[in-house]
């Protein structure tokens, strides 16, 4: 019965990644290699991040929200963006379109994140006899994270790979990228600064991720068809 629960939570946590891969054209163009490479880059980035965190951050005795520490954490969080930049621009991929590239990178990124951060707690906790909602919420969080990762990758590809994008959209793209990149700090603030409970935080994450995904999608579409977008603006 408890293994059953673990199975359920694992489906919720890792299922969407697989579904995304098989439902979108990613599977048709066989972009698994790209995703795996992105995952490896994620692992390296996570290692660098850990070293930075261990070097620059004090161990907080209390669970309170310390703005200075959180600012440092947010700065260190931008290492993620650097890693994503590396994954998007420096990795040599087989000939895949930009369209698929950012999706594959975002997917690999999010999957590696889920495996690294959620698999072990899930295995330890969800198999126990005690029932809590935590692991289901954690699975939902993984979903939000997938959407956010792909959005960030999309924005990144717009920033770094697309040369001829409408000038008016550039500030919006950068703004969105900053918002998405600082999401971990935002949720940390909500949880500890404002004392929100996990269900509320996860709900917020899901909502924001969907909004950001929609905006990113619109931006991406606008950049692909600049004339149409401009027409729409006028």
């Amino acid at each position: 019965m408890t293994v059953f629960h673990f199975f359920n939570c694992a489906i919720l946590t890792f299922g969407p990644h697989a579904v995304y891969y098989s439902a979108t054209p990613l599977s048709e163009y066989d972009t698994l290699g790209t995703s795996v490479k992105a995952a490896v880059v994620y692992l390296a980035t996570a290692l660098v991040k850990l070293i930075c965190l261990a070097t620059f951050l004090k161990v907080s005795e209390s669970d309170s929200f310390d703005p200075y520490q959180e600012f440092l954490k947010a700065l260190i969080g931008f290492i993620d963006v650097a890693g994503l930049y590396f994954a998007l621009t420096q990795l040599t991929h087989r000939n895949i379109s930009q369209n698929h590239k950012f999706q594959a990178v975002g997917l690999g990124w999010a999957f590696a994140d889920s495996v690294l951060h959620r698999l072990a707690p899930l295995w330890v906790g969800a198999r126990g006899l005690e029932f809590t909602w935590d692991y289901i919420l954690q699975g939902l969080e993984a979903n939000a994270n997938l959407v956010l990762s792909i959005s960030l990758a999309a924005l990144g590809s717009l920033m770094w790979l697309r040369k001829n994008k409408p000038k008016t959209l550039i500030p919006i793209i950068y703004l969105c990228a900053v918002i998405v990149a600082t999401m971990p700090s935002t949720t940390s603030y909500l949880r500890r600064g404002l004392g929100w409970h996990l269900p509320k935080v996860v709900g917020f994450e899901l909502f924001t991720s969907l909004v950001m995904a929609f905006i990113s999608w619109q931006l991406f579409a606008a950049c692909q068809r600049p004339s149409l977008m401009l027409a729409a603006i006028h």
Partner: protein
Amino acid sequence: MAMTPRKTRNREMLFDSVIALVFILVACVDLCDGATVVDVYRLIQYDMSGVPFGSRLASLNHHAASLHFSPHADLSRTVLLIPLRELNMSFVQEYIAASKPLGGLILLLPQMFSVENKGGVGSNHDDGSKELLKNVLDEVEQILIHTNLPDASFLQYPVYFAFEDENIDTVLLDIKKNDATGQPATATTGGYKFVVSATEPKKVGSPPITNIQGWLAGLKTDGDSHQLPTIAIVASYDTFGAAPALSVGSDSNGSGIVALLEVARLFSLLYSNPKTRGQYNLLFGLTSGGPYNYNGTRKWLQSFDQRLRESIDYAICLDSIGSWENELWIHVSKPPENAFIKQIMEDFSSVAEELGFQVNLKHKKINISNPRVAWEHEQFSRLRVTAATLSELSTPPELLERTGGLVDGRQFVNEAAIVRSVKLIAESLAKHIYGHQGKNVQIFADNSNLAVNPSYVRSWLDVLSRTPRVAPFLSKDDPFVTALKKELEDHTDEVNLQREVLDGMFTFYDSTTAKLNIYQVASVTFDLLLLLVLGSYLIVLFSFLVITTRGLDDLISLFRRPPSRKVKTA
């Protein structure tokens, strides 16, 4: 085409590594702990002459229910959590005495019986309900200890005791709410699961009993001190009860131990000065094995050499002298006309009269052929040593009755009663030793430096009321035995330990305490429902993604030609 085998090999390698990772995790991680962990105390398990008694099982893993179960429910896979306040005797008759099948039983005792709870401070119950609970618990304890039926002579399910506290009260409330809906908690409805992971109880090999003996030598006039007459003061110190880890026995026989130590202290003061040292040797004995027909006392007496045994004038055994009002009993085996008995009785009743209460004599002949030894002095009498037992009980207790079980807690013992008993014993002994018979002399008067020290009595009583002392579970060098020995060493000249093994007919089993893990579990129905929801979520997600990225036609064609990829690779 050339790509395909490499691709599959890659996939296989990935798959293998994932499996390897999973196995590593399986090896590393153990099951997690429960949300609530409660200390529980197992019902005693013992054999008497090969006949099993008590609960035979220790491990528990069942759903919980309260007393409000439906009458026809099958409870063989359910743990009942029952507070003592709600226990009714019909249930006890049905499930304990008649041993109906049950998954397990956890009896919740009020905090006032807890070992940590000193003197019932903060108890908000009036004395009436306290007494009532005490009587109920006493009755249940006796039933649990003695359950013996021809077909099922023991309980086929684990029985534990626990104490009421906030955590377990909330759990109980939830369980009751669940039971009120009419459905017993099972695998399909969720609720609480109680888990005690314990190994199979093992026999305690050769249960040890340790007798402690202190010797206070009298004043030698000429020759060997062993030629002086000896008076023995004896108390048995171990206990027996339904839950060995909770058998502290404040009255039986904590009060006796305290009185003995205080008498030893008083006489050590007298004997430290040669002017006041009496011409009697004093022998203090703290014996073990009391609940088992005073087995330790018998071994102790048998170890005496003939000269010592013959030098004993008389022995006073102390048993349960901590909760009486105005009447004590002296139990003897020799007829009251016996000169020694007359002497003892005279000493005691005259002192009692001065102190304002009554001491009665009760004569009970011993029957050598009967293995039951109801009073400690009967072991002396069997070896033809004059002896008497001072006790608040007027009738001899049955086997394993009044041996310091669950109800025998600190708050039911009256310190003042012990102090008065000590005064009685010390004064009467002094009368005998210094030959003040017939004179009105108070040696241990209040406010003198020989007065009984109530704080000494209280502190020892507190220590004893926190220390479970079931002999088979006291290790060889138990700190408690060492402490008693040390205390007696302070008051006497010479202290000896006698280590023996408890005789024959009793066998004990270990694992007296355990940790109860309480898990709130979800039902299988919930998990099935969750699986359904998740499945449909993934399907919807899949359809949504296919439609947005490839179009609706692709989705439809996917269902029309499922092996589309195979077609492509071919």
